């Protein structure tokens, strides 16, 4: 009887006995993510489930990521198969209005320049010593687009998924702090004061319906490996613009997006086990992610300066900073900065065009990257 009680008590306190310093640190990190999401409002839809997932997976002996663990099921079937980020893309497509982009299509080029940070960071990551595919996964944080970063890192470097996702979502919410100093540094007072004219080029309903279909076909033919990313984004947009599938549109932007966001967040949190997350590599990933978004902003603004030069001062280079995928946050940052220097300057609509270009641009950049990797024989079919 006595030995049975002792054994029972041992079983009860086994968790406490197995609680290591790594677990404790990760429990604090998980709680910190919850704090940032709940109290600071930093991407709460993702940081709350990620933070909670990180707590769950670091409870000693709970085994949630063991072969029969419930988080392992979602991770294997939703993240490793890349289904979750793709379902999120349908929701994003259903929520996104590409009209500002269609009204002023030349601005879409800023959405390309705003992705250059990805490729520059790739070189930096390789210089630091990251493995080729790990460097790709880290660099894609510069897409400033959570689902794209998750899609690419789950494909090439699942062991970095936690760090890449945390970096992608945290920095997206920190765009209002990261971008302004870079914008000021790279522009002159005169450039920041440029007032851009109103672009009034309304778009027909037919164009808005045909746009997602044509973009899917054209972009997928040019970068076939990115078809899942482009296709799901544009499918969502077609549901929105067709106007005949209100229930599907509503499901894509509400039920599907909400359920998948919850499961995706938990699954990402579940990758943050102490022995995998508490490494110097994680800090490097976080630092490179910040650099990537800074470089995106810098190249976007520099490209804006080039467009300013070519149009003889008709384009305010500040809108180049909106060529990233953080929508509509980056466009708001541009509007606020522009207003600081010229109260008569209303850059919001132009910045929204660039920002919509950045949304398409991030997906295209990832698609191009995947196709080039396939072409070089680095990844298989």
């Amino acid at each position, binding site marked *: 009887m006595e030995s049975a009680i002792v054994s029972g008590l041992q079983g009860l306190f086994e968790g406490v006995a197995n609680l290591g310093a790594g677990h404790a640190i990760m429990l604090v990190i998980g709680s910190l993510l919850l704090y940032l999401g709940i109290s600071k409002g930093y991407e709460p839809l993702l940081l709350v489930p990620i933070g909670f997932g990180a707590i769950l997976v670091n409870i000693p002996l709970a085994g949630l990521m063991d072969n029969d663990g419930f988080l392992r099921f979602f991770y294997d079937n939703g993240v490793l198969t890349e289904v979750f980020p793709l379902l999120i893309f349908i929701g994003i497509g259903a929520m996104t209005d590409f009209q500002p982009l*269609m009204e002023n299509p030349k601005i879409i080029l800023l959405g390309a320049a705003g992705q250059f940070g990805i490729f520059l960071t790739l070189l930096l990551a390789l210089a630091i010593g990251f493995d080729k595919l790990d460097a790709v996964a880290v660099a894609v944080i510069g897409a400033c687009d959570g689902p794209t970063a998750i899609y690419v890192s789950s494909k090439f470097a699942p062991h970095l998924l936690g760090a890449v996702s945390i970096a992608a979502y945290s920095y997206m919410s920190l765009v209002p702090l990261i971008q302004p100093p870079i914008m000021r540094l790279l522009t002159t007072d005169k450039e920041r004061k440029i007032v851009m004219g109103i672009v009034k080029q309304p778009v027909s309903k037919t164009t808005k319906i045909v*746009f997602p279909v044509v973009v899917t076909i054209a972009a997928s033919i040019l970068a076939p490996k990115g078809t899942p990313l482009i296709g799901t984004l544009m499918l969502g947009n077609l549901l929105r613009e067709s106007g005949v599938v209100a229930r599907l549109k509503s499901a894509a932007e509400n039920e599907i997006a909400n359920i998948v966001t919850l499961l995706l967040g938990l699954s990402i949190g579940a990758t943050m086990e102490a022995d995998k997350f508490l490494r110097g590599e994680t800090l490097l990933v976080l630092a490179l992610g910040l650099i990537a978004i800074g470089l995106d902003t810098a190249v976007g603004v520099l490209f804006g300066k080039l467009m300013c030069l070519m149009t003889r001062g008709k384009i305010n280079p500040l809108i180049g900073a909106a060529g990233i995928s953080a929508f509509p946050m980056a466009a708001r940052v541009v509007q606020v900065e522009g207003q600081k220097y010229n109260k008569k300057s209303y850059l919001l609509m132009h910045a929204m065009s660039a920002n919509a270009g950045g949304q398409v641009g991030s997906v295209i950049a990832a698609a191009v990257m995947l196709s080039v990797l396939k072409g070089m024989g680095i990844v298989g079919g």
Partner: protein
Amino acid sequence: MDTWTFGWTLALIGMGGTMLVLWCLSLVVLLLKKIFPYRPDDSASQKG
């Protein structure tokens, strides 16, 4: 393939390719606007 050949190839083709694809898309949008021009009654149907 050595690391730097990989890095520079992916970076240069990646940046060029992204710019090229988006430039093509901007042409596609311009073409779509020419084929399906906006008519004022569109706005009424869009609101509906």
